[in-house]
């Protein structure tokens, strides 16, 4: 019996800039079950981070959710007022930020900041008990609990990232969004942290959204993969299917651009052109200018995001039939 944890329907989000409206997220729909992880992959600017911030409604003043519904475990996030929103943040959905970010305030100790998160959502826990919990979390992510009272600048990049993960777990969230959590780390640390994350996710039976532009990383941690292009979701299926039998030409091109250690040497395919300017997105299917299979229908009408095969969604007028890429 699978429980639906997150359900996103037709999410549309725009930024208002001095040059016009930027259509950052356009009619995106997906679902995540309890304990399942979804990887969102795509080029820079395709809208994956915008989706993440839209889920917790942490948008700048010039951004707006124009349409759509976000339901977390039967609670409608899009309809929440400010007070409810403050509660659902971190306790319902928490975030692990990019390693390069200063997600930690430099003038407070790491432990204090996690205690703050805990106390903000559990008013009856006193400081002593909160610190005990922080120590547990540190052990869980592989940090020495004594580091709790250190300041962020005293920790290495990998240690900081683990602390940020511990912070994200601190209120037992139902869903964690990990936004490029290992991009700024070196490969060895990256590997360790990815494995740690995967293990914690399985152990705590948490849902996770994993965001990256690196399809290799996505492949390692995700149960399902959603491919984003120009603010729309191009394809959504479980990880194996996306890799072995993608049906959207963009996914195919994305995979083709990625060298494989096994298998024959082959010429890497590259996509001509650039991702479109979301201020004036292309008409119809946003991928049509770069798509080798585009027809006039693709230019005139945007393809609907439908289930082409069991549990395999795509937005394409001419999906591909490819076996064993």
């Amino acid at each position, binding site marked *: 019996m699978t429980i639906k944890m997150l359900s996103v329907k037709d999410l549309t989000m725009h930024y208002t800039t001095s040059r016009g409206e930027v259509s950052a997220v356009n009619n995106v729909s997906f679902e995540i079950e309890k304990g399942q992880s979804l990887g969102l992959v795509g080029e820079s600017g395709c809208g994956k981070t915008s989706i993440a911030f839209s889920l*917790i409604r*942490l948008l700048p003043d010039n951004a707006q959710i124009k349409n759509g519904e976000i339901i977390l475990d039967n609670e409608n996030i899009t309809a929440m007022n400010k007070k409810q929103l*403050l509660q*659902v*943040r971190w306790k319902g959905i928490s975030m692990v930020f990019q390693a390069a970010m*200063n*997600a*930690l*305030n*430099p003038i407070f100790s790491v432990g204090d900041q996690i205690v703050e998160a805990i106390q903000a959502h559990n008013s009856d826990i006193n400081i002593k008990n909160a610190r005990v919990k922080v120590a547990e979390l540190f052990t869980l992510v592989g940090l020495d609990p004594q580091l709790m009272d250190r300041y962020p600048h005293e920790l290495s990049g990998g240690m900081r990232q683990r602390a940020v993960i511990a912070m994200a777990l601190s209120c037992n969230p139902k869903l964690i969004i990990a936004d490029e959590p290992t991009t700024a780390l070196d490969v060895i640390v990256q590997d360790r942290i990815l494995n740690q994350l995967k293990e914690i996710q399985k152990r705590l039976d948490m849902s996770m959204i994993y965001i990256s532009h690196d399809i290799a990383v996505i492949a390692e941690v995700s149960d399902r993969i959603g491919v984003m292009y120009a603010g729309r979701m191009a394809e959504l299926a479980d990880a194996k299917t996306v890799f072995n039998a993608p049906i959207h030409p963009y996914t195919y091109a994305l995979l083709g651009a990625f060298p494989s250690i096994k298998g024959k040497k082959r010429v890497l395919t590259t996509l001509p052109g650039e991702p479109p300017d979301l201020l004036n997105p292309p008409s119809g299917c946003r991928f049509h200018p770069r798509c080798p299979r585009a027809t006039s229908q693709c230019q005139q009408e945007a393809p609907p995001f439908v289930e082409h095969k069991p549990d395999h969604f795509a937005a394409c007028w001419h999906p591909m039939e490819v076996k064993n890429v």
Partner: protein
Amino acid sequence: MKKYILRRVIQILFTLIIFQSLLFIILDAQPGDITNLYLLNPKITPEAQEQMRVVLGLDKPPLVRYLRWLWNFVQGNLGTSFSHYPREVMDIIMERAPRTLVLFLTNQLISFSVGFFLGKQMAWHRGTTFEYGLTIIGVILFTIFTPWFGLMMIYLFGIELNLLPIGKFLDPSIWRNVPLDANTIFYYLIVTAVIGLILIILVNRLTRKTSRIVRQIVRIGGFVVIVGGSILIWSLTPVGFLAGDIVKHMILPVLVSTLVSFAGTMLLMRNTMLETLREDYIMAARAKGLPESVIRDKHAARNAFLPAFTNLIISIPFALSGGIITETIFSWPGMGLTLLEAVNLEDIPLAMGTLSFVGVLALLAHLVADIAYAFLDPRIRYQ
């Protein structure tokens, strides 16, 4: 931490020596020397003048004189005043210094607090008329010509409305048959203020780890109790009315000097807050579901506080300079007025001595502020 403090102290001492040396160079650069002042007296013959120079050690080579100058300074011997002969310069300074200190410290404290608070509000209400209005008011007040502004204020409050006294720091008629002198009262006032400040800081530190509501109540309540308590204690003493007189005379000078200087902190605070609010950890704090007031006051303002404090440190010499102007307008007999008097009367020892002292004061204040900064910014301590 200790290493940092030690390093700072040595740097300040070094600066002090350079400062004194610069003063010596200025003094020496003048053509002739002090004995030239006596040239106009026909009774003094050139031989007598030469004898004077020997007595004063002015015939020795410059290096010797320079070292003597430094040595005297270190001992606290700043010479003897001409215009207040035979009082020693140090003596006169000690008498006048507390009055300047009282004004200076009060001004810095109030102007920083007000500037900090208003700057925070301005950043939070960016783009509104409130912000623009306050910016213009702030800029005009910051660049207003202080003597002119001071005179306007004196005219308004002292003469037209007759609310506050016009100048000086006490009303002689009240003080006529009183056993104590003004300096003792000043001294005790400073002591009260220092004790009050320490208590407030203690209260703040002790309540750090408690919950928000308890903390707010204790801090605000503590502040009221401490201030109210001090006033109460003073009014119960037999000399309370004297202190009240001094405070009454202080209101206008403090008001003018605060109005003229708070905008510096305020505008900087607004800029720094805006920069801080762009930082990633602010966004992370929002994602954690913390309420806006906590983000503003705890996360953003605490970070923005540091550059504002640095600015306070940097503007200490300007504040002292401004103090000179304020003292002149209000005839407040502190160091600033002394300096002007000395310059106008060509009392070189007094002028140089006062300047030395003001320099020392500036450097000391700088040192204290630097050390306080090390306590506030955890990143500095571990260098």
